C-alpha cells in the first residue's frame, strides 16, 4: 500500500515539476520577457550572433547570387565601391570618392588605399576591372548582366568578341573609370549591388563554381552547408579599424518561423526577422517588449497581373473593372501591420505617395460600370450577368499569396467575375506565368533590386521584358508611350524630371491596368536588449555589419534565465506537501 502511494506521489511530483518547468518562463504577454537589459555602454568586441532564415541560400558567389537570402550574407563578405548610409543615402565605401562627369557618362572611382582583401592582397583598380569582367563574361550565369549593358563595349565583351570590357579603364593603381555608352541615372545604385563587389584574386578572371567566397568585407566565410548553416568569422584585417565587433556570425538556414521564435525566446537566436503573424502580434503587443524592435521598410509591391493578350483581359474595361473592384484595405486587414494597402507600382519607400498621385483605388460603382462597358453587365441585387466563364487565377504556395487570392476571389465575385484559384510551387508559377497565352491572371510581386522607380517598370511592365517563355512581364503588357517614357527617364540626370516621368508612368499603368496593385509587405525585426548597433537600413536588408553585443549582460541574463525554472521549483517546494512530493520525485532517481 505504502509503495503504491509513494509511486502516485512521485508521479504527481513529476507532473508538478513538468508544469512548473513549462510555465516558469511564461508571462502574461504570451511571450517570454527580453533577456537582460539594454545598458548604455560604448561598443564592445566579442560575442557570436545567432540568427536564421526561413529559406535556404543557393550561392554566395557575388557573380551569381541574387536571391533575398544571399544578399544579407554577401553584405558581410563583400564590400562594394559604394553603399548606403543609415538614412538610405549613397556613400562611398571601398571607393574614397566618386566623380561623375556632367553628361553622366563617366564615373571615376578613386579607391581607398590599404584595403586588404580576405586573401591578403591589397585592393587595386585592376581588381575592380577583373571582378566586373568576371561577372559580365558570357560564361558567367549572372542573373542580371543587362543592368550593366550601358557600359561602353558591353555587347562586344558579353558576346565574347572582345577580350576586355572597354568601358572599364584602369587609370592608376587606385583609380578606375567606367565609361557608359549612354547615361544611366541608376548606374550608381547598380554599383552598390554586391554583384559588382571586388572579389579576391583567387576567384580568377572567369567564373568558376568552386570559388570560395572571398572579398573585402568585414566577415570571412568559414562554413556553408546548404539548408543548414552559414558560419562567418571576423575579418582581422578589415580595412575599417576597430570593426567589425562580433567574433562570429552563425546564420541558420531553412528554419521554420516558429522554431526561430522559440529559439529567440531561449536566447539561442539573438536577432529575428521572420515572425509569423501571430508571434509578431504577440511581441508587438507585449508590455515587456514595448518600444523594442523596428519595422523594416518595404521595397515590395504585390498585386494581380492581368494577361493583356488573353480573354477576357484583352478587354481594357475588364482590366479596369478588376482594379476598381479590389478593396486593398480589406486585404491589408488580414495581416495588420505587416501588410499595407498599395495603390501604385513603385513602393512608398522609393517614391512616397502624396495626395493626387496617380494610383488605383477601390470604387465598386466604377467597377460595375466598367463591367457594363466591357459587355458583361452585372446586377448585384439578382446576381445575374457578369463574365460567363470561370477565370483561372495562379497563386504561389505560400500562406499570404493564397490568402490574398481568396479575398480577391470574394471581391471579384461581387462584380460578376468568378475565379478559380490554382496554388502551385514557385518554379511552376514562374514557368506558367511567364509563358505566353497560358495564364489569364494571377498573383504577382516585385522586390526592388535597387532603390529606383525604373526597377519597378522596366523589368516587369516594358515591352522588352516580354518573352515567349520566362517572361518577367507576366501581364504581357506592351505600351509604346510607357516604353519611350522609361528610356527617357533612365537617360535623364535631372531627378525632378525623372520623378515627373515616373508619375506619368504610374498614370499609364493605372489607366491601362495590366496590374491591379494590392499590397506591400514589411517585416518586423526584433533583437534582444544585449544586441546593440543595429537598426533596419532603409535600403539594405539585414545589414548587421555594425552590430555588437553587451556580452557581460548577455551572460548574466542567460544564466538568470536558466535559473528561472529552478527558482520556480524551489518556490513550489516551499509550499508544504507539494514541496515534499516534488522533492521526493526529484530525489527518486
Amino acid at each position: 500500500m505504502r509503495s503504491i502511494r509513494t509511486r502516485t506521489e512521485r508521479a504527481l511530483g513529476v507532473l508538478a515539476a513538468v508544469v512548473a518547468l513549462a510555465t516558469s518562463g511564461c508571462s502574461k504577454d504570451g511571450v517570454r520577457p527580453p533577456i537582460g537589459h539594454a545598458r548604455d555602454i560604448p561598443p564592445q568586441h566579442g560575442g557570436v550572433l545567432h540568427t536564421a532564415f526561413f529559406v535556404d541560400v543557393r550561392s554566395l558567389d557575388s557573380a551569381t547570387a541574387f536571391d533575398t537570402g544571399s544578399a544579407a550574407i554577401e553584405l558581410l563578405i563583400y564590400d562594394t565601391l559604394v553603399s548606403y548610409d543609415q538614412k538610405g543615402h549613397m556613400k562611398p565605401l571601398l571607393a574614397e570618392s566618386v566623380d561623375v562627369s556632367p553628361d553622366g557618362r563617366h564615373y571615376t572611382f578613386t579607391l581607398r588605399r590599404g584595403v586588404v582583401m580576405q586573401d591578403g592582397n591589397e585592393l587595386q583598380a585592376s581588381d575592380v576591372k577583373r571582378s566586373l569582367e568576371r561577372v559580365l563574361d558570357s560564361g558567367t550565369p549572372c542573373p542580371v548582366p543587362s543592368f550593366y549593358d550601358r557600359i561602353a563595349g558591353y555587347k562586344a565583351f558579353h558576346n565574347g568578341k572582345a577580350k576586355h570590357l572597354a568601358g572599364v579603364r584602369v587609370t592608376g593603381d587606385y583609380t578606375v573609370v567606367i565609361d557608359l555608352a549612354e547615361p544611366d541615372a541608376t548606374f550608381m545604385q547598380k554599383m552598390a549591388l554586391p554583384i559588382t563587389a571586388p572579389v579576391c584574386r583567387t576567384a580568377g578572371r572567369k567564373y568558376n563554381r568552386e570559388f570560395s567566397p572571398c572579398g573585402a568585407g568585414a566577415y570571412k566565410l568559414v562554413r556553408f552547408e546548404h539548408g543548414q548553416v552559414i558560419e562567418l568569422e571576423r575579418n582581422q584585417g578589415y580595412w575599417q579599424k576597430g570593426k567589425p565587433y562580433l567574433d562570429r556570425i552563425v546564420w541558420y538556414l531553412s528554419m521554420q518561423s516558429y522554431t526561430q521564435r522559440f529559439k529567440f525566446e531561449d536566447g539561442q537566436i539573438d536577432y529575428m526577422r521572420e515572425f509569423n503573424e501571430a508571434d509578431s502580434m504577440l511581441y508587438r503587443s507585449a508590455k515587456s517588449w514595448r518600444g523594442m524592435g523596428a519595422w523594416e521598410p518595404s521595397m515590395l509591391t504585390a498585386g494581380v497581373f492581368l494577361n493583356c493578350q488573353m480573354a477576357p483581359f484583352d478587354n481594357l474595361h475588364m482590366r479596369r473593372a478588376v482594379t476598381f473592384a479590389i478593396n486593398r484595405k480589406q486585404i491589408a486587414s488580414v495581416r495588420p501591420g505587416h501588410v499595407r494597402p498599395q495603390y501604385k507600382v513603385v513602393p512608398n519607400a522609393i517614391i512616397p505617395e502624396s495626395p493626387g498621385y496617380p494610383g488605383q483605388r477601390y470604387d465598386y460603382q466604377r467597377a460595375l460600370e466598367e463591367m457594363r462597358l466591357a459587355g458583361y453587365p452585372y446586377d448585384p441585387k439578382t446576381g445575374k450577368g457578369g463574365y460567363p466563364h470561370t477565370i483561372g487565377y495562379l497563386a504561389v504556395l505560400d500562406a499570404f499569396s493564397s490568402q490574398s487570392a481568396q479575398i480577391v476571389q470574394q471581391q471579384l465575385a461581387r462584380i460578376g467575375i468568378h475565379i478559380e484559384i490554382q496554388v502551385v510551387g514557385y518554379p511552376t508559377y514562374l514557368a506558367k506565368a511567364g509563358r505566353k497565352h497560358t495564364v489569364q491572371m494571377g498573383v504577382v510581386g516585385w522586390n526592388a533590386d535597387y532603390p529606383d522607380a525604373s526597377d519597378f517598370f522596366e523589368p516587369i511592365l516594358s515591352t522588352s521584358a516580354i518573352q515567349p517563355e520566362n517572361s518577367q512581364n507576366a501581364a504581357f503588357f506592351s505600351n509604346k508611350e510607357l516604353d519611350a517614357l522609361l528610356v527617357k527617364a533612365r537617360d535623364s540626370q535631372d531627378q525632378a524630371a525623372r520623378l515627373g516621368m515616373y508619375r506619368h508612368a504610374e498614370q499609364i499603368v493605372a489607366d491601362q491596368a495590366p496590374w491591379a496593385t494590392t499590397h506591400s509587405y514589411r517585416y518586423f525585426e526584433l533583437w534582444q536588449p544585449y544586441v546593440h548597433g543595429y537598426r533596419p537600413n532603409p535600403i539594405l536588408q539585414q545589414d548587421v555589419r555594425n552590430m555588437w553585443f553587451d556580452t557581460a549582460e548577455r551572460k548574466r541574463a542567460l544564466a538568470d534565465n536558466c535559473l528561472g525554472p529552478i527558482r520556480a521549483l524551489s518556490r513550489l517546494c516551499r509550499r508544504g506537501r507539494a514541496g515534499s512530493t516534488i522533492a521526493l520525485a526529484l530525489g527518486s532517481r
Partner: protein
Amino acid sequence: MLDPRAARRFKKNRGAVVGLFLVILLVLFALFAPALTGQDPNLSDFAHGQNALGQPAGVSSLHWMGVDQLYRDLLSRLAYGARVSLLIAFFATGLSIGVGALVGLVSGYAESTRGQGVDTALMRFVDVGLSFPYLLLVMAIGAAVGRTTIVTILMVLGLTSWFGTARIIRSKTIQVRSLDFIVASRALGQSTWRILARHILPNVAGPLIVIASASVAQMIIAESVLSYLQVGLPPPTPSWGSMLQEGQHYLTIAPRLAVAPGFMIFLSVIGFNLVGEGLRDALDPHED
C-alpha cells in the same frame, strides 16, 4: 445487413456503440450545422472579424466558434469541411472496396485454374501497388493531376488504396470457392459471374464491411494530409487538413483555429475505427 446475433454482439460492444454515436454525430453535424449557423463558409466578415488587437475574433453570437484568419465563420467551415471529408471518404472507400473486391474475387476464383495467368498478373500488379508508400503515391498523383477537384481527389484516393482489399478478398475467395455449395453451383452449370456475384460475394461481405469502415478513417486522414500539404482541394474549399495547416500559424494567439479541425479529424477517425473494430468482432462467429 447484420444478422440478429451479430447486431446483438455489436450492441454489447461499448466501444463500437461510442464509435457509431460519433459517426452519427459527425454526419448530423455535416448535414445540419451549416443551416444552423447560416454563415457562408467562404465569405469573410470584415466588419466583425477582428478583435481590438487586430486578431481573428473569438466566440460571439454571430460566430459561435469565432472566425478564422480570413475572418470566415469557423463553425461553418468545420461543417462544410465535414461534408467534404465525409463525401470524399465515403466515395473513395466505395471505389476502393469496389475495385479491390472485383480484383480479389476474379483473382481468387482464377487461382489454380486455367485462368491462373489472370491471378498471377493481378497479384503482381497488387504487389507493385503495395510496394509504394501509399501517401507518397497519392501525393505524387495529386501533384501530377494539377487541377484538383473533389472528383479527382476521391478518384486518386480510391484508385490507389484497393490493393490490400484485393489481397484479403482473394484469400477469402479461395477459401469459399472450395466449399460444397460452390462446387454444386458449378455442377448445375451456373456461369462464373453468377457464382461470383450470388454465392461468393455474399460470403466475403463480412470482411469487406470491416475493411470499408476502417478505410473511411484512412481516407479521412489521407484527404487531410493532402490538404495539409496544400496538394488537396484548392482554396477556398474548406477542408480540415488545410484549416489545420493555416491555423497552426496562429497557435499562440488563436489555438482554436488549429485545435478545432485537428479535433474533428481525431473524432472522425476514432469513430470510424471503433465502428470497424466493433463490426469485426460482431461478424466474427467465434465471438459466440
